[in-house]
């Protein structure tokens, strides 16, 4: 249907969208993580190693990879509960760096050489089916009890606690789920690129995922996906920029913060009510 190149780009878009959503869900509960690449790496390595050493089938290894990621997410999310904003961001950053150094040093994981000849199993069907399921879940999450609890915690944790929302439970849940999804995306990545090394999961990758959410908008679940799509296509479309690509990339962060710090997609952008009011020219309606 698509030629090999387009198909490849589509797969990367799908995987990046899942990654963006994984960061989004931790951010939903008010926790900014700059270390998601480590969870991605955990999923990738677990899945690749299980398949190489034990010969398990794809679905089993991917599931195990995701669970391993979730486990580490739990281990990190629990003790860091009382860290706010900036401190949590730095703690997750530290975790990312430590993880990379550890894996580099362990021979059994391939060290700096990484693992190659990982069997290529991921294809667009698997990726987009997973993404579809995720999007549906997020849509349903918005109005569910859990979704509202997340929003309450993000707005004001103390007030939420006072209202009886079990902040501890939800925050750890969000963190674990985010790590789980990131690890799942990592496993998909490993079985697509067929070669993984610790360098693939360094802090730069965490920042890349952060940019998906920052560019696309962290208020709705559509935002991160839009960010992922745009930023995966950008290097391909802007290939002529070659050496200047990183320059534009960095500048983009700065400019977005100045011009539209909520990101491209705000809550109002996809609100049906706002659109219909504006289209019908009611009262003081303005475009969303």
């Amino acid at each position, binding site marked *: 249907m698509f*030629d*090999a*190149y*387009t198909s*490849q*780009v589509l797969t*990367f878009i799908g995987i990046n969208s899942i990654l963006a959503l994984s960061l989004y869900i931790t951010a939903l509960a008010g926790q900014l993580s700059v270390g998601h690449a480590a969870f991605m790496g955990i999923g990738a390595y677990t899945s690749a190693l299980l398949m190489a050493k034990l010969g398990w089938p794809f679905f089993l290894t991917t599931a195990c990879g995701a669970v391993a990621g979730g486990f580490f997410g739990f281990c990190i999310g629990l003790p860091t509960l009382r860290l706010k904003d900036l401190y949590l961001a730095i703690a997750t950053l530290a975790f990312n760096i430590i993880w990379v*150094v550890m894996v*580099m*040093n362990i021979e059994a994981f391939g*060290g*700096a*050489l*990484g693992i*190659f000849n990982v069997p290529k199993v991921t294809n667009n069907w698997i990726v987009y089916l997973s993404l579809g399921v995720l999007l549906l879940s997020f849509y349903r999450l918005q109005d569910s009890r859990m979704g509202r609890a997340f929003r309450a915690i993000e707005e004001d944790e103390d007030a939420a606690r006072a209202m009886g929302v079990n902040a501890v439970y939800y925050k750890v849940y969000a963190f674990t789920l985010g790590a789980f999804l990131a690890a799942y995306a990592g496993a998909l990545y490993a079985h697509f*690129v*067929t*070669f993984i*090394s*610790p*360098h*693939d999961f360094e802090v730069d990758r965490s920042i890349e995922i952060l940019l998906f959410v920052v560019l696309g908008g962290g208020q709705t679940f559509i935002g991160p996906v839009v960010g992922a799509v745009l930023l995966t296509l950008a*290097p*391909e479309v*802007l*290939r*002529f*920029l*070659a*050496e200047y*690509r*990183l320059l*534009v990339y960095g*500048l983009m962060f700065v*400019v977005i913060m*100045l*011009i*539209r*710090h*909520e990101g491209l997609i705000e809550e109002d952008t996809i609100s049906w009510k706002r659109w219909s009011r504006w289209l019908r020219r009611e009262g003081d309606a*303005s*475009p*969303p």
Partner: protein
Amino acid sequence: MLAALYKPKRSQRNPLCPPKKSLAAKLYGCWFNPIIRREGKMKKGMVLGMCFLLAFCFTGPRVRVSSAADEILVGNASSLTGTAAQYGISTYEGLEVAMEEINAAGGILGKKIQILKGDDSGDPRQAINVVQKFITKDKVLVIIGAELTGTTRVTGPISNQGQMVQFTASATGAGLTDNLPYVFRNALPEAYAIPFVVDAAKKKFKMGSVVILTSYNLDYSVDLTKIYEKALSASGIKVQDKISYAEGDIDFSAQVSKIKALKPEVVVMTGYYQESAQLMIEMRKQGINCPILGSNGFNDPKILDLAGKAMEGSAWASGFFPDNPDPRVRKFVAKVQEKYKKKPNQFHAQAYDALWIIAEAIKRAGVTESTPENRTKIRDALSRIEKFPGVSGTHTFRAGKGDAEKSVFILTLRDGKYALLD
């Protein structure tokens, strides 16, 4: 109905009614919420500047991808940005020199060569995209790349599957061409070159105890350390200790003090040239004067710039000897010096040879259109090339093996100039 005639115009209905904004203005005002506008007169110039940047992005220098009808497209997948950028840029420069020479002589089969840049930043993920694009979208005839072992390892199978010849002029990892009939290289695999270095060093230096320095987060260095260990133990030389550092480190005083305490007779360095140069300088500063054995990473003249006298007496393997009196080499060196104001390094030389060899293969195959059958013809022609004289040595390819057979030069630094170790 007459009342309609007296209906005042919309804008005059209520003096407090704000003037109607056009749709575009509304969208802009609501969509972009510039904090800079709210805060007052801040950088209008900044917005202007951003517009310029965007304009530049979309109208700026573009890489011309012309149709393949009148040109032969060669894709160069390499790391033009990132930590290995220095090697990638050298490779591209070498290709450019060769391209100009070939085109000046009339091109191949009457068509001129054009080289497409494909930057992968040394990242395997991007390398895959670059190579896949070269095969599917740009329909190049041949790919020269990738630059590094890691990127070549992932892209080789892709080129192989797409029946596209991929020729690397710089990746030296083990097994990159095994079982991949479309992948070739003229870079010296380390596993092949290191035993020569150890042999030559044994004859020249006392090698009772050796310390190896490894850049633990660099796959190239970790690989090379294992190769050195094997070669040293095969020669019966004891490895006293392995000390590691990280690529990107700037302070090596601690590692060097540790070396000083161990008092080895030879130190082996396995990393890229930046850190190796720093280590050499620090070693000489702390008074360690034993000889140093190096690696392919030493093949950039920048290391001489950085390390200067600290490098005297060290030895390493190279595919290219810049002070080779051979007239072809001298002409090449002069050309690179004139065009880029620098002395060519091994990467320039091997890339230069690579393009010439490929040009020869294309000429022998007699085809210029990029189809799988034609590319297979080029592959067959390439694997039959024997004794091709290049600036980095005489190349011979054998059927079934992608690695070129060529000579290994053991170089050393004597009185600030490169010389052959003897």
